[in-house]
């Protein structure tokens, strides 16, 4: 058995220093890894990034993160990433990591992801350059995410994004903003790689549970949705797919 703890959208700043860490006491006993699903800071400043690094360092379990749109707000995403890495936190963007745990090797691929919308109701690379740029960015990150998932050599594969891969977990959000909350291309990447669990954040008003069209469990771990410091999911390792 593998135990995955996850939370997103913690939106920390100086004012909240120490507040989150005080809720993480039992983490090492209850999980093999902690996933952070982006929007770790409030405004994306390097100073807020330092607060995140201090809250989540040295917890006794590996911590794997992706950034969210908020973490890009001040163009300090690289400084935030470096700060987290300096405290031993793995930050993924279009790549993956494999961790050993008593229950087997956990492979995690991650990306911030992007908007774009869901099958049948999404924008296409057509028209003004701004629209084309929007759609293209969503395609590129989903493409890299899929490749990173497929490259994982692990007993259990987990997809970690900030933006949502499915609509299921957006229930409660106004449908008008779905194209800004996620992209079905992320689900397509998940479904193409024998993934055991897809974790995302970003949809603060959504719900926790969903499913990709291919039947992979999706969990929206945005803190306002969880209403608890983190979620823990216990999974069976899924055997490697047979190469064909």
């Amino acid at each position, binding site marked *: 058995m593998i135990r995955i703890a996850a939370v997103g959208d913690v939106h920390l700043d100086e004012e909240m220093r120490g507040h989150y860490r005080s809720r993480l006491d039992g983490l090492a006993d209850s999980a093999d890894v902690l996933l952070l699903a982006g929007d770790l800071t409030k405004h994306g400043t390097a100073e807020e990034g330092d607060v995140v690094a201090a809250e989540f360092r040295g917890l006794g379990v590996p911590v794997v993160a992706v950034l969210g749109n908020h973490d890009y707000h001040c163009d300090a995403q690289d400084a935030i990433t470096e700060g987290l890495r300096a405290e031993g936190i793995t930050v993924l963007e279009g790549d993956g990591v494999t961790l050993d745990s008593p229950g087997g090797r956990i492979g995690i691929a991650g990306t911030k992801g992007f908007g774009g919308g869901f099958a049948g109701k999404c924008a296409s690379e057509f028209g003004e350059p701004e629209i084309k740029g929007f759609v293209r960015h969503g395609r590129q990150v989903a493409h890299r995410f899929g490749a990173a998932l497929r490259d994982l050599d692990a007993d259990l594969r987990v997809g970690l994004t900030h933006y949502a891969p499915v609509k299921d977990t957006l229930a409660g959000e106004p449908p008008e903003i779905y194209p800004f909350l996620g992209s079905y291309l992320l689900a397509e990447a998940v479904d193409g790689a024998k993934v055991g669990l897809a974790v995302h954040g970003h949809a603060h008003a959504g719900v926790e549970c969903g499913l990709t069209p291919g039947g992979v469990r999706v969990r929206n771990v945005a803190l306002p949705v*969880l209403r608890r410091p983190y979620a823990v999911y216990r999974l069976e390792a899924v055997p490697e797919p047979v190469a064909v």
Partner: protein
Amino acid sequence: MREGPETAALLTTLKRVAIILKDAGVPFALSGSFAAYARGATASDHDVDFAVLPGDVERAVDALARAGLEPVRVAEDWLAKMYDDARQVDLIYRPSEHPVTPEMLGRAAPMKVNSIHVPVLDATDLMVMLLRAFTEHHCDFSAPLEIARALREQVDWPAVRAATADSPYAHAFLVLLRHLAVIGPNEENPMAREEPQYLAGHLQQALAEDPRTGALGIRVRVHGTDVHLSGDLPSRERRRMVLAVAREMVPDYVVHDDLSVDPMEGDTEEERLA
């Protein structure tokens, strides 16, 4: 300006106290209704108020007592009272829990009152002090209303609004001033003049984008002159800030707090995904 005999006597007291404080080297500013009078409002026939620093109260009382004024024991911890014959002098140092500051006395402008120059509290500071003083048991708007009319061009109203944002009484008073056209619509704040059907959307965006709040998940509903905010915030401090910023952004609306704090209250329990 017409002045009754009582006012004339109070002006004499005012002059006397000002000279004593000046000679004693105690920084002060004329406050209350006579500050308003100096700035153009109708004369008062009540008492004379001076603002002094909390650390200078004792020195001021001593100097005045030496000159023959009669100190009176008071229960309040924000002013000292003295009598010049039958005329009351208040030395105010911590009105409505806000201590008088050197900056505030620094903003006081020397003005001619009853043939001497006296530092007179800045019109904005005076207005803030008046509005903060409203409480459940003291919310007669008539005198402050008269003062607001007389001083309206000297007052920095957005600053008054900001400084009194946490007082529902001050808010009500400012709405009244706006409806009486004493003050104009909030010119520096375009949201105040907005059609209600756009207000919710713009307020929600402003709360997300304002660096003081950065609150992305706040829901805003507008009904008439009521604005309801709901959603989760990580701390009480943030909730206070969101409310203060919203009140500042839509000063002519009543902002209701349906926000909740601490989205981390739940226990972490495991979900088995078979």
